[in-house]
């Protein structure tokens, strides 16, 4: 490992990582087809598979190829493994409204047998997909021809035992369960329980609990819909099960609060066990305070001891044992604070950025504008800004850290706030569960970066 001064963020052990471009997937042209807009990115539990969902309702799964022992200067590349249409656009005739096919979230189930399973959801319907490989087919039936036509039994004079013969690998995706008609509002989250039997789905006002085997019934575990919709002032923005306690989950709100609920306490978890909220800083108060406090993502650490929340300007780490304030706060793009009015006008202030942990919970990552993404090392307290761009296209090229100049004299290589492209936003990022491999989605491209390997 080459030690480097500055520009790197460590992944435990204190050594700084140097991030290198590895691959980019997606169309090259600047003209973005709406259906190609990436809406979710997720590694599976082993990191071998990487799934993306897009606005056109498609799921694309990439598989990491086995490491090439001879050319060991990089980890295996991700290549397309399976592509399928998960959701189709629908029309709700009762409301005269379209239901978008956009995939809001994908979550993988842990692997139990040869097949892989994932949950994918759009605004209204969750589907369980089975992805299986077929690399053999049976040949030599007695009663069937090779093309499938049945033979007349009277013409059979000898018997043989059918055998499996190899065939070209075929990856098949089939929908095994469809969980529909349980959400009046738009689903924003799905989360699989650590019991691997149940999962939750959350929309703006309600959270439902499902059993993976049962599609015609779900239990409502949170309902914040007021009796009178005129009184609505707060919605659910994200929800997640605790990674180890199968009775515990959290949900975040548009007012910047996180509620931790214990399903053992009551059937309807409207009363939280814990409420996490940081008191507002009065010196920063503005008409936009509430909007920027709205939490766009919540993620437990792998250890289960912490959770991370993302609001418009910052990432906060909370200790589950302390409700009154986060233990760590990282500013993602504080230079935007003075631009909030413009960002409100062009709707950027409503962008929902996600965040993620690395495998050891020592580094967190989130996206920003201008195709920048940020990483914060919790141990060294160092942070880095990198850019996902085809300009750094050569594999094993170390990415150059970027810097935004908030005001005053712009140094060389810095970008001024006013030059940032707010159309280029990185909302979805994912970190390999075990290695320093990250997947970063720009509007319609998926970038894969790895740390430099000697």
């Amino acid at each position, binding site marked *: 490992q080459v030690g480097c001064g500055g520009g790197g963020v460590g992944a435990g052990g204190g050594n700084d990582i140097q991030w290198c471009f590895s691959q980019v997937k997606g169309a090259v042209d600047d003209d973005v087809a709406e259906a190609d807009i990436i809406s979710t990115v997720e590694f599976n539990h082993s990191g071998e598979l990487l799934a993306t969902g897009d606005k056109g309702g498609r799921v694309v799964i990439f598989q990491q190829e086995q490491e090439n022992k001879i050319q060991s200067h990089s980890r295996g590349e991700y290549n397309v493994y399976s592509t399928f249409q998960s959701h189709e656009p629908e029309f709700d005739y009762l*409301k005269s409204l379209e239901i978008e096919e956009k995939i809001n979230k994908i979550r993988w189930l842990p692997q139990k047998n040869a097949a892989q399973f994932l949950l994918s959801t759009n605004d209204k319907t969750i589907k369980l997909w089975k992805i299986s490989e077929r690399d053999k087919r049976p040949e030599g039936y007695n009663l069937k021809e090779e093309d499938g036509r049945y033979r007349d039994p009277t013409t059979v004079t000898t018997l043989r035992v059918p055998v499996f013969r190899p065939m070209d690998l075929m990856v098949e995706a089939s929908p095994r369960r469809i969980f529909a008609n349980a959400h009046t509002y738009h689903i924003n989250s799905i989360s699989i329980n650590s019991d691997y039997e149940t999962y939750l789905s959350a929309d703006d006002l309600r959270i439902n609990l499902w059993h993976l085997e049962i599609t015609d019934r779900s239990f409502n575990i949170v309902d914040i819909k007021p009796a009178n919709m005129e009184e609505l002032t707060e919605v659910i923005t994200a929800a997640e099960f605790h990674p180890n306690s199968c009775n515990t989950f959290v949900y975040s709100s548009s007012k910047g609060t996180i509620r931790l609920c214990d399903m053992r306490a009551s059937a309807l978890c409207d009363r939280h066990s814990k409420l996490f909220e940081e008191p507002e800083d009065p010196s920063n108060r*503005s008409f*936009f305070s509430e909007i920027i406090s709205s939490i766009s993502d919540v993620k437990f650490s792998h250890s289960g001891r912490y959770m991370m929340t993302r609001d418009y300007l910052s990432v906060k780490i909370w200790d589950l044992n302390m409700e009154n304030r986060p233990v760590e706060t990282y500013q993602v793009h504080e230079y935007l604070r003075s631009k909030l009015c413009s960002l409100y006008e062009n709707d950027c202030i409503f962008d929902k950025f996600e965040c993620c942990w690395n495998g050891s919970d020592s580094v967190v990552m989130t996206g920003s504008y201008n195709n920048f993404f940020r990483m914060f090392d919790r141990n060294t307290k160092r942070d880095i800004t990198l850019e996902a761009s085809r300009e750094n296209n050569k594999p094993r090229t170390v990415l150059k850290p970027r810097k935004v100049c908030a005001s005053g004299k712009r140094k060389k290589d810095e970008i001024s706030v006013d030059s940032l492209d707010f159309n280029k936003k990185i909302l979805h990022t994912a970190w390999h569960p075990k290695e320093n491999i990250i997947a970063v989605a720009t509007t319609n491209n998926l970038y894969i970066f790895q740390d430099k390997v000697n």
Partner: protein
Amino acid sequence: MFARGLKRKSPEDGEDMEGGLAGARATPSYSLQRQSLLDMSLVKLQLCHMLVEPNLCRSVLIANTVRQIQEEMSQDGTWRVVAPQAAGRAPLDRLVSTDILCRSVREQEGERPAPDVGDGHTADLVPGLAVVPSAQALRSPQSSLWEVDSSRENRGGFQKSLDQIFETLENKTSGSVEELFADVDSSYYDLDAVLTGMVGSTPSAHANRCLHPASPAASLVG
């Protein structure tokens, strides 16, 4: 729609809006900016994606922002309170404001207001019918218009209108019998046609029942 960069704001403008408000509140530039923020927010609430349900989170956040501004303006005394009978009249006008969700501001300003026909009570009779904004508009097309520019006097009613917006979102879930049997005009999907009122009546079932099937207010869009 999205600006490539950002509008440059002079430093003191930015501070007036987002910085310490106490001293700056009295300045005319602050109230102008606050007013423009209010107007912008109301426009945002009114415009919606025609075929897809509006994002509830975004609507709630904008509505809360409007309430905050309204509260502050009430404290300042710059928020003029509406006379009681006007507020009482509000229900029909405000009910129809749900229709505003689906029309552009430009379209509203082009239409002339007319006396209220006073059939606000019909809204309560048949809940299924009441939730369909265009049906309301069609029954009394002239009175169904919400004066936006003279609305400074009606600001007291804005609170109610926000509530109506959420009621629409709520009521849309219960659906209406008419919509089940309505033929959907294919031009319904043409955004431009809808905004310019070229779409005469959608769904056509409504046209058969109403007084002015060709009224622009008839375009029912999500």
